[in-house]
């Protein structure tokens, strides 16, 4: 019986094609928008979580507070070698490394550019390489004795940084000092990260004249230790050595899980806001359905009378109209999902090819597709509920007389 109503509803919609299309326009634009937003937001979340997983879940990051825009941008507070020594001695810390970041002048074949450079202790390069999950695409990553050498981000391989691509064993100059390119890294996914130049801490301090400052200390936790307990221990030791209390604490201690959580919250807020905006357009689309269905009920008053005369109950009439409006929503949803899929893929394509980031990848889990379709059907049915109720309550005598 329900299948017959679906066929009946389809026939009715096909008879008023243009109107049906115009009504669905409002639905499929908003469903497509919602689909794109969720799919990209999920994709972004997946990509970021993947990156964090690469960092490993056994690392604790210690940074000074009050940095304006990430490590290296400066602030009143600085971490130094003293702090490294304190952290190193905390029970549960297996290994330790750190880095300093600054802007450097990079020169290659008479061209000069300014990019961020990073210095890290070569004798702790194992931990550093593992922490950043660095992999050499060409050549090798920096090892313990690799003074006078640098490893560089993947962007230098292409000619969009310098006119000519840099190759392994080329010589570049950083702040006037020459380095041999030991390795070119695989892409980290983010263009800014892929333009970094890495070198030994000693040479970094020599060419930047930064004496003691350390931007980030990374402690690796012993296997089997609770990372949160170790983080807490580090915090207490550092407070003591820096002569501070919890209230005056000037450094932050982050575990990957915490960072990820913060990121998730921010992303969810942004997504929720955008969905709210898209929701308004869906509401407008729903009102379009209400309008169309009311017109349809009015036009088909006589038809309703005939159906009642031949035995249709109120509930039959209600269902016929409800399914019809639900179909408007559903078909609008199908088109919206297809459209949304195309747009998301398009954005992903542009992100990878034009912006060089692999972070903005669209994700299409089954529940997103099914959910969008169900949602569209429900919106359609809800919008049609009132007109359908009105249709079902028509008095058959009056309806039959209607011309």
């Amino acid at each position, binding site marked *: *019986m329900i299948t*017959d109503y679906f066929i*009946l509803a389809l*026939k*009715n919609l096909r*008879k008023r094609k243009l109107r049906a299309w115009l009504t669905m326009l409002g639905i499929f634009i908003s469903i497509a928008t919602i689909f794109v937003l969720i799919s990209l937001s999920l994709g972004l979340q997946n990509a970021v979580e993947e990156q964090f997983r690469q960092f490993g879940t056994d690392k604790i990051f210690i940074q000074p507070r009050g940095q304006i825009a990430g490590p290296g941008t400066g602030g009143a507070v600085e971490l130094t070698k003293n702090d490294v020594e304190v952290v190193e001695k905390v029970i549960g810390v297996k290994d330790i490394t750190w880095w300093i970041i600054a802007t450097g002048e990079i020169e290659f074949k008479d061209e000069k550019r300014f990019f961020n450079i990073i210095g890290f202790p070569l004798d702790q390069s194992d931990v550093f390489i593992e922490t950043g999950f660095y992999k050499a695409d060409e050549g090798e990553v920096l090892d313990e004795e690799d003074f006078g050498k640098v490893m560089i981000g993947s962007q230098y391989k292409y000619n969009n940084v310098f006119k000519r691509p840099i190759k392994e064993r080329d010589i570049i100059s950083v702040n006037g000092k020459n380095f041999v390119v030991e390795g070119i890294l695989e892409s980290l996914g983010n263009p800014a990260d892929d333009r970094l130049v890495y070198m030994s801490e000693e040479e970094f301090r020599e060419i930047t004249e930064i004496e003691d400052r350390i931007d980030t200390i990374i402690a690796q936790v012993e296997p089997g230790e609770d990372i949160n307990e170790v983080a807490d221990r580090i915090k207490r030791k550092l407070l003591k050595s820096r002569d501070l209390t919890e209230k005056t604490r000037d450094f932050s201690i982050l575990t990957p899980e915490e960072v990820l959580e913060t990121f998730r919250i921010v992303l969810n807020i942004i997504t929720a806001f955008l969905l709210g905006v898209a929701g308004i357009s869906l509401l407008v689309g729903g009102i379009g359905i209400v309008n169309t269905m009311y017109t349809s009920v009015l036009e088909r008053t*006589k*038809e309703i*009378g*005939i*159906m*009642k*005369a*031949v*035995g*249709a*109950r*109120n*509930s*039959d009439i209600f269902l016929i109209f409800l399914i019809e409006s639900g179909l408007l929503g559903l078909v609008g949803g199908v088109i919206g999902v297809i459209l949304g899929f195309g747009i998301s893929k398009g954005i992903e394509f542009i992100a990878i090819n034009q912006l060089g980031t692999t972070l903005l990848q669209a994700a299409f889990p089954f529940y997103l597709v099914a959910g969008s379709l169900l949602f569209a059907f429900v919106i359609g049915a809800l919008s049609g509920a009132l007109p359908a109720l009105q249709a079902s309550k028509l*008095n*058959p*005598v009056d309806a*039959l007389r209607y011309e």
Partner: protein
Amino acid sequence: MTEIIKLKNVAKHYYMGDDVVKALDGVDISIEKGSFVAIMGPSGSGKSTGMNLIGSLDLPTSGEIYLDEHDISHLTESELAQIRGKKIGFIFQSFNLIPNLTAKENIMLPMLFQGLEKNERESRAEELLGLVDLKDRINHYPNQLSGGQQQRVAIARALANDPEVILADEPTGNLDTKTGENVLQFLENLNKKGKTIVMVTHDSKLAEKHAQKIYWLKDGKIEKVTRKEKEKWKTVK
């Protein structure tokens, strides 16, 4: 003879602002099983209201209506719908086919509302289209059919659930004389096969030619009742 439909002291009043329009005012009508009855009257006589009540499309303001000896004057609208869908077949002056359904689908509609299976509906619809001689128009839409053909589809639809009563409201009003005559001949044949026919019309010649009993309505009341006995019309009331 048993009565299939009986109206007992039935009144139907419409309220228009402060005015009361007495469309029907204390009417008794009884329709015997297997008879051919005409409801006659000029426009405004209340015959349309009468038809709506006989066809259980509407409920009376007062009085009782019996369909197959059950009082239907207090049923809900959905209960009425089920009963009329099963026991009464309608034929309208303007055919009232649903324009975006084919001839076959129009005939299947009343069976759909009675919950019949699809293949059952289809075979019965095809059989009925054969009965009204429209087998070659199965998948035609109403606007592809002539008036006479449309009325035959409507008759087939009225017969869909094999109802006991066929209620025809000015069935020839939109047809030329010859086509109209065919339609009425068809109704007479149905009557001979045992169907009860109730025809509402303003055409006394038509009524007297085909019916066996005529209720003459005027101003919401029954003016007289005549009955055909041995080809002669006699006033019985």
